[in-house]
């Protein structure tokens, strides 16, 4: 799966949790999930679970903690897919 494909899927998964639609429309890999998209921090747990389901990977809690930007999520998933 290409990095662009993963990015698109990550964005789809994050979408229902986004509170700032305008920023979401312009989002790129450096967009911060909590600060820029105003996602409720408690819901990061659900986003990670949805990544696991969508990409059929397992994300450890320590890995999850390293996700701040959309790009962090994409990189993490690419890494898991390659493993």
């Amino acid at each position, binding site marked *: 799966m290409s990095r662009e494909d993963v990015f698109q899927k990550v964005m789809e998964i994050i979408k*229902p*949790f986004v*509170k700032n639609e305008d920023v979401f429309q312009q989002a790129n890999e450096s967009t911060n999930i909590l600060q820029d998209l105003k996602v*409720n921090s*408690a*819901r*990061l*747990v*659900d986003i990670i*679970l949805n990544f696991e389901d969508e990409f059929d990977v397992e994300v450890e*809690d320590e890995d999850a903690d390293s996700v701040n930007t959309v790009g962090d999520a994409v990189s993490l998933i690419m890494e898991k897919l390659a493993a």
Partner: protein
Amino acid sequence: MNSRVVVTGMGVVAPNGVGLNQYSQALRAGKSGIRHISVMEEYKFGCTVGGIPQGVDAIAEDYFTAEDLMAMNTSHRYGCIAAVDAWTDAGFERPSRDDDEVFWDAGAVIGSGIGGLDTAGERLIPFVDAGRVRRLGSTMVEQIMGSGVSARVAGLLALGNQVTANSSACSTGTEAIIEGYRQIQSGRARRMLCGGTEGSSHYQWAGFDAMRVLSRKYNDEPERASRPLSASAAGFVPSSGSGILLLENLEDAESRGARIYGEILGGNVNCGGHRRGGSMTAPNPDGVQMCIKRAVEESGIEKGEIDAINGHLTATGADSSEVFSWAKALEVSPEEFPLITSTKSMIGHALGAAGSLEVVACMLMLDGGFVHPSINCEDVHPNIEEFAGSIPQTVEEVPQLKTIIKAGFGFGDVNVCAVFRKWLNH
């Protein structure tokens, strides 16, 4: 001086109608909302009928965001739809998420008898037992915590006064209304969203089935299964839904020109102490009568002014003793006995939501000048035969209907009673 408290908005999600129009029409028509529930049959319940509001998910998708919906089980969906409807019915706009204004004088008391067991049964327990705790996600606690629905409503409507949940078994819904009434009466709040909500889950109903208190004889005729006051009553029909009322202080309601359904004249909440025949599951008749008497006293009306009774009346053996308790507490002979009706005959017993679903019925009856039928009691129980003339078999048009009294009784020997009056000063 105490503030007077009026009802200016209502929302209802009931098995026989969602929204005030549908519900009001169903009540007038004596329409049952009881249906066959296949999951109860599948899991070998003795009772395989119940009350589940219809078409709720489609409404929920209109009302709530995808993120909200992920954290809303049936109890949440019913309660939040009813609360939002009560708010807008009262003429208030639903605030935007982006608007930082908080309504510091508006609160909520929204309780459940059980609540959230669909989430516990379908997700929490199976996931934990399978060692998959981390797969529960973030939405578990808010769906099973006792105050989950009131908390969700607070976020939807930016409530800033007391936001809490009460629980007193089958008197929960009416008790919530008394709690909100007192909060406004004492000047601590200016408007309160109050009532009960109860989700649809066979896990919620299983314990009652095991106690053999559910109706088992009418599984093939769901609409006839809930038979309060009847000689052939065979237990209550489990049900679900929500009724929420927006209570407001009279001055505010009048100054903004709100439509007023009725006034809460007074109420009482007590417990029979599990004495004199009272127990976890049966009421002490002294407690019941005292609760009714004190509610009437607080209302400042004469007993003879009561035009109609919306009873607890579940379709168990307790119906007859309830009728006798009313007669004793109100000191009326069978001939003078007011009209008495059971909303549960149409919607079943919605446990913690029952009381407020029935108070919504009371307000609709006051507003519309009618008393809805108590269906399925064409064979009035012989013990209460002399009261049969007071039980409407079809809708009674009562244009002069002015005062309704409502009681609810719950496991734990707890009682609640409230008196409502039609608003005539407009």
